[in-house]
């Protein structure tokens, strides 16, 4: 009962909001983790994160090899960078030797970490595309849906992004595939 109450408190209504605009920059100094030493390629997604305002990670998809403690550190840093920004900031932040393209939807931050050469607006809209698919799939999605069906969320991610590249962009096709997979269960 109390659990339901607790969950009820954290129940968030999902509203697809307009993007918030630029804010204070956070040019992070180059930390000891020099991320590019492990990859020689230059244009792709490094990781995708969904975090809530409090810092809890709802989804973390990594397209590059990191140790667990490095992952934790990255998650904390991304959270620190992204939550201080508000409407007057851009949706793009320089992060170590990459950049993060993020957008806030209600209490969740969707962050995609890409290389500096990548097209910002394309990835910004890729986030939105992804969110729209989630919305369709979960019928007015909210944070709780992501919490309880995290495995399904990963399926959606894998339909739309693979190997650090955008895989499928058609919402109809993705949903068709997802429904097919769902029917197999």
């Amino acid at each position: 009962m109390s659990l339901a109450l607790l969950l009820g408190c954290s129940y968030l209504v999902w509203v697809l909001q307009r993007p918030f605009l630029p804010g204070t920059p956070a040019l992070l100094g180059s930390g000891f983790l020099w991320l590019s030493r492990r990859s020689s390629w230059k244009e792709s997604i490094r990781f995708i994160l969904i975090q809530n305002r409090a810092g809890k990670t709802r989804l973390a998809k990594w397209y590059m090899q990191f140790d667990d403690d490095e992952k934790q550190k990255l998650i904390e840093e991304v959270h620190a960078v992204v939550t201080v920004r508000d409407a007057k900031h851009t949706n793009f932040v320089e992060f170590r030797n990459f950049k993060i393209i993020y957008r806030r939807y209600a209490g969740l931050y969707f962050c995609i970490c890409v290389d500096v050469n990548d097209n910002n607006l394309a990835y910004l809209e890729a986030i939105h595309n992804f969110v729209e698919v989630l919305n369709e799939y979960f019928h007015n999605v909210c944070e709780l849906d992501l919490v309880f069906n995290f495995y399904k969320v990963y399926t959606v991610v894998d339909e739309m992004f693979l190997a650090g590249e955008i895989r499928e962009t058609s919402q109809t096709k993705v949903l068709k595939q997802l429904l097919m997979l769902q029917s197999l269960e």
Partner: protein
Amino acid sequence: MDSVKQSAALCLLRLYRTSSDLVPMGDWTSRVVHLLNDQHLGVVTAATSLITTLAQKNPEEFKTSVSLAVSRLSRIVTSASTDLQDYTYYFVPAPWLSVKLLRLLQCYPPPEDPAVRGRLTECLETILNKAQEPPKSKKVQHSNAKNAVLFEAISLIIHHDSEPNLLVRACNQLGQFLQHRETNLRYLALESMCTLASSEFSHEAVKTHIETVINALKTERDVSVRQRAVDLLYAMCDRSNAPQIVAEMLSYLETADYSIREEIVLKVAILAEKYAVDYTWYVDTILNLIRIAGDYVSEEVWYRVIQIVINRDDVQGYAAKTVFEALQAPACHENLVKVGGYILGEFGNLIAGDPRSSPLIQFNLLHSKFHLCSVPTRALLLSTYIKFVNLFPEVKPTIQDVLRSDSQLRNADVELQQRAVEYLRLSTVASTDILATVLEEMPPFPERESSILAKLKKKKGPSTVTDLEDTKRERSVDVNGGPEPAPASTSAMSTPSPSADLLGLGAAPPAPAGPPPSSGSGGLLVDVFSDSASAVAPLAPGSEDNFARFVCKNNGVLFENQLLQIGLKSEFRQNLGRMFIFYGNKTSTQFLNFTPTLICSDDLQPHLNLQTKPVDPTVEGGAQVQQVVNIECVSDFTEAPVLSIQFRYGGTFQNVSVQLPITLNKFFQPTEMASQDFFQRWKQLSNPQQEVQNIFKAKHPMDTEVTKAKIIGFGSALLEEVDPNPANFVGAGIIHTKTTQIGCLLRLEPNLQAQMYRLTLRTSKEAVSQRLCELLSAQF
């Protein structure tokens, strides 16, 4: 089926990125390229990503993809909104696919085939036209998607850099975005314009927006946007607008974020020098720079201003006067004191005529700051004082009093004390002639490349702005020397050309630490660092000791200097071995072009097989990289391979060579045996060539346990109770090589009274006995 193709293409991409040689490209090229024609746009999306990566490695193979990509792109861009049902996103047809296709096209130069070229140009024009049309939807998603394609198209136009009207149109479009409501667009426009500024066709067009950019600099609320504005100002700067831009950047500097100040300082310094028509302006700018952001003015900047002042007679008087006035401010930055001290020391006589800046006043002014300064500055001021003694005999007694005071003569700092003592003596003992010769005015510095650019490049890393500098310099004509992408400079000294730009190309070795005290007779400044990327440097000093240490042990630090630490960890089994070499960067700056090479001399080559994989050529500050060396002993050998490491640190080449301690005894396998066996074999190896004996003085204290440990470390088995004399050490083992195995027996007899040893080695091969004896004798 299509879904499988999509996933397969991206999987292949991932595999390719992990190890590119695994993928057999030859046969698969046509199949992969054919995917671009697929009906399913998802497949095309995945395939495009794959081809883009593959084409970067083998552009020739995938040339055919260009025309397919162009036709695909033009079909998408010109499609009506009812086609491409599934892939239309907020009234924009297949935006992500368009972006990917445009990205693919950026891997190639403009297509040669005129038909393809024409189609591409049409396509780009259509995209640019669409940007001008009224939007089909009020939603931000629509405009973002449309603009994503637009920015990528502009990026392609810039990359091709061949169609002037496209470039100009792109520039105008970006100009419109500069004043857009959305900050995202303003940010991206500033960024794109930065790259546009370097192209000769659009440079003028970019300059027209200078007012908007300056306005952005003043009014933007997001610091990263302001930063882009600064970058753009730097990129669009040329002779016509330099004073304005420098002034704007200086005023921005006063309120800039601390983290970016140093970069702005460097940029201002570079611009001021490059576009200075009137060097008095340059001097003013630098002094202003020091006044506003003194802490962030790095050494290179103020060395440069001094070099320039010394090289240009016309500006010397002005510099002296300005510096004098600047020093009168109640609180000046230490860098200003340094610059002021140096300039007054050299050229104070030029303003000494004016009663307001008489020698005594100059001296008092400098001395009033003396106690506020750090040690290097004080050292510099002491040099200035002795120069004053030469220039102005009337202040000699005053200065001598200062030098004579205990706080100088007995100063805790050695440098200051030395200078005070020597200068005092010099002033008392030397006649005026000698004094004049010793303290003659500094001769002009040889014209050399500016180290400021190197510093800026280092700071920014491989970013667009500094690459921009490269392309800019490649196009500019009035710089001395031919175009040469930094940092591949081969000679530090270019021939002096008095009226040419001092700003040159390439990275130069930084000026020697601090302007040298003028007590040296005027000679050319000698490069402190050698810039030649020559062949193997002579072996680093001290490497002999380290080498000997490694004979009996396998792990430890092989070499260390201020920049680099080399550690080793090795293990051997029979005739094979593996060595891990750890290179640690002890500094906070990255090493570039880091290449360690293993060199086996011709004699050594047939006997020892070394295999290693190349190391990442960039070593970050504080990082450690590892290199694995696989070793195989083919037959016995005497020499040791040499590890030669070359890298760039800062602007200089570094060359380190150490001997790699791969010695014959590493392949020594201990063999236990009983006393009888030992003596039997000992008699078998009674041939005089097979025995080598050495009698030598002990270098280290003769401790039994230590000796035993060393023998075991050497690789031999220590046999107890074999020798009738219990003080003697006896060992046996087998040297494993690929071709043969050589049995070895050794006996070490210590003589404690004489502090000497007699070492006898018997093996079936003379050379082996010789070498092992050598190696082992050195250990004791």
